[in-house]
């Protein structure tokens, strides 16, 4: 006994000493804080290929959506490579899984930039994934192409936003409801940054346009019990609903909506997160006749879209629809190609300078990059969900809408940002 306790004490002292030594070793190295010059780029463009990164969630809750974006990115890369690559260099894809977690997105973005030395990264879906990657791209001075509609109020020089900002999706959605003579709108959304910001904008819009917001309800992401919210909706006397729910919640919401006897003809729901892919999951019978606000549908009539849809179905099967985020991702790769070719360089600063005014005849129509806020001018479409599960445009904006992420061009939005 005495022997053992003694040796315990001795080892304890040594351990403590070792720990102290270890800690002091780091103190010596702390040094002065550096001046944070942007990291030197390690992108290698000397060979016959250039690396780019695809970062989408292939596992976790977002995988089902983000896999479709990955598929269309792969398609675009294959097309570009078959066509001779970019500046004569073949694209070499480094694929990563964001795992539906912001922290993983940040880590993988860092890895793609610092370890793989990619020229640009394409991907991200949720706002949280973009927000998590933003400081990484800014501090390492690299480029991210983000393909999903989002809540605006952002413009990083290191991100190109090829999905819609609020004045290209939310505001056209409200314009349409106003045009239809709707005056009592009910808001329902998932509890995260996009719905809350969208609803803030809708509230301001409504106030300025004589529309009454008769209810505003949030459900946690993944929530599937909508009895209370739908009852509130019915009792509110709303004549339209603006829906910013995401994912599975939509299934439960529309089932409940149907259960209480609400009809698309009298109380239409405008959704901004339901695309062709999601319609099947919700069940066409539950959602037929409802409205969506996007900038692309599979049914958009253009020669470019015909080619895109055909190529996609040839690659992934006739049963796979194409949707807005997929098209925006596909477009993003071609836009990057156009920027690089205009700059005649893969260098980040050169691409940023060349970006302004770059256009691409995308499946959704011709898009143009705004060099100031790095968003793109897009046409807005209000679509109606048909019984074949596809969405058909019933209204479109007059030409492409200039991106305005901070809503500076709208007087009523003055207090928002």
């Amino acid at each position, binding site marked *: 006994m005495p022997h053992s306790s003694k040796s315990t004490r001795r080892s304890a002292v040594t351990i403590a000493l070792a720990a102290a030594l270890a800690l002091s070793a780091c103190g010596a190295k702390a040094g002065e804080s550096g001046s*944070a010059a942007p990291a030197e780029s390690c992108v290698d463009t000397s060979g016959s290929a250039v690396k780019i990164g695809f970062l989408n969630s292939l596992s976790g809750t977002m995988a089902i959506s983000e896999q479709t974006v990955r598929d269309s990115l792969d398609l675009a890369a294959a097309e570009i490579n078959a066509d001779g690559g970019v500046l004569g260099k073949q694209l070499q894809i480094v694929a990563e899984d964001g795992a539906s977690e912001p922290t993983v997105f940040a*880590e993988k973005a860092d890895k793609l930039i610092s370890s793989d030395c990619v020229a640009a990264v394409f991907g991200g879906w949720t706002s949280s994934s973009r927000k998590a990657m933003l400081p990484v791209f800014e501090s390492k001075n690299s480029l991210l192409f983000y393909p999903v509609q989002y809540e605006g109020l952002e413009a990083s020089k290191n991100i190109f936003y090829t999905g819609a900002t609020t004045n290209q999706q939310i505001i056209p959605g409200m314009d349409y409801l106003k045009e239809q003579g709707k005056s009592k709108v009910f808001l329902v959304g998932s509890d995260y940054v996009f719905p809350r910001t969208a609803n803030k904008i809708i509230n301001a819009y409504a106030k300025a346009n004589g529309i009454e917001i008769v209810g505003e309800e949030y459900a946690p992401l993944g929530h599937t019990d909508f009895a209370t919210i739908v009852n509130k909706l019915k009792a509110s006397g709303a004549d339209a609903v603006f829906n910013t729910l995401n994912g599975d919640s939509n299934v439960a919401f529309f089932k409940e909506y149907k259960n209480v006897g609400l009809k698309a003809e009298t109380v239409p729901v405008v959704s901004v997160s339901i695309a062709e892919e999601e319609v099947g999951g919700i069940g066409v019978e539950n959602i037929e006749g409802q409205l969506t606000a996007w900038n692309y549908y599979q049914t958009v009539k253009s020669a470019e879209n015909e080619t895109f849809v055909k190529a996609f179905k040839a690659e992934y099967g006739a049963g796979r629809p194409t949707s807005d985020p997929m098209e925006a991702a596909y477009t993003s790769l071609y836009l990057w190609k156009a920027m690089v070719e205009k700059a005649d360089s893969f260098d980040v600063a050169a691409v940023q300078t060349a970006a302004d005014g770059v256009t691409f005849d995308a499946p959704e129509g011709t898009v143009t990059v705004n060099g100031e806020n790095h968003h793109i001018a897009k046409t807005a479409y209000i679509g109606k969900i048909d019984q074949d599960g596809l969405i058909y445009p019933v209204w479109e904006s007059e030409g492409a809408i200039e991106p305005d992420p901070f809503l500076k061009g709208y007087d009523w939005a003055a207090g928002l*940002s």
Partner: protein
Amino acid sequence: MNPALKTWAGFGGAAVLLFAVAPAALSDFRLNLLAKFLCLAMVAVGIGFAWGRGGMLVLGQGVFFGLGGYLMAMHMKLADAGPGGVPDFMLLYGNGVLPGWWEPMRSPVVTVLAILVLPAALALVLGYAVFRRRVRGAYFAILSQALAAAFALLLIGQQTVTGGTNGLNGFRSFFGYDLADPLNKQTLYYICAGVLLAMVAGVRLLMNSRYGELLVAVRDQENRVRFLGYDPALIKAGAYALAACFAAVGGALFTPVAGIISPADVGVVPSISLLIGVAIGGRATLLGPVIGSIAVSWAETGLSERFPSIWTYFLGGLFIVVVAFLPNGLASLTFRRRPSPATGKQTQPATSVDLPATSGGHP
């Protein structure tokens, strides 16, 4: 070989590995990744102590990890905003007014104290209240898990003051040091390594102390300990509080290393994955949780880089194999080769309760 000497040698080896080999062999990016794993391993050390030695299946360590992480994040956000400043996300999504409970985190001293004390105090109070009512085993596990779920929901719901699902990120400095400087990132790694080693040393001391013996006794025969005149609730709450404190420190260091803390890092799923590493490594041993946790994190990253679309299956497979064939973790492999119970403890009859971990946690 004298077991104390062996522990000492193992500890020295780990120090050499962490302080000399790793920084020399790894790129800046990989070293930062390792720092992140070390932060998670800190949580694992605490889980190993509370679960392996104390028999408490702590399924909700994400709460304490998150408290530490968010406290640190609040401080860094405020430091970046400057004196009297308001964090950027509050201006963007909120009304731009700093809530009163953020204010104390401006001070670095208060922040560090809060990280060390708040989560531990919460665990102590909560643990004592729960254990006094003799809530044990699966019931305690469910309770701790519910806590993690509630905490994540709370963070998500209060977007204007917590950043919601986006969490808090975009930090520029850590106690005055520029985080964009690779040298400072390296220092951060050394801090993580040092803190982890100190924690392991601390647990090793506790394991061999009178308190450590009592904790194992409570795990194996709570009633007998009670009849001897001790208060098992207090003994368990103590271990729970220590685990909470370790988790909070891990979280506090994780935030500057990873550059972000979000509800996805503190909820039920991350709480469970923290546990998986401990289970795989061997929960009742000193180094099992640390090695298991680092190995699982490393495997997650490595496999997801190599097989981005199917890596989760490998991880699931590994877990199934360990649970089915090595219920006491990979550490039990070393048990089998040596008959004497050499987990770094003295070989004397009185302490042989240290044998595999126990049904105590699973009624």
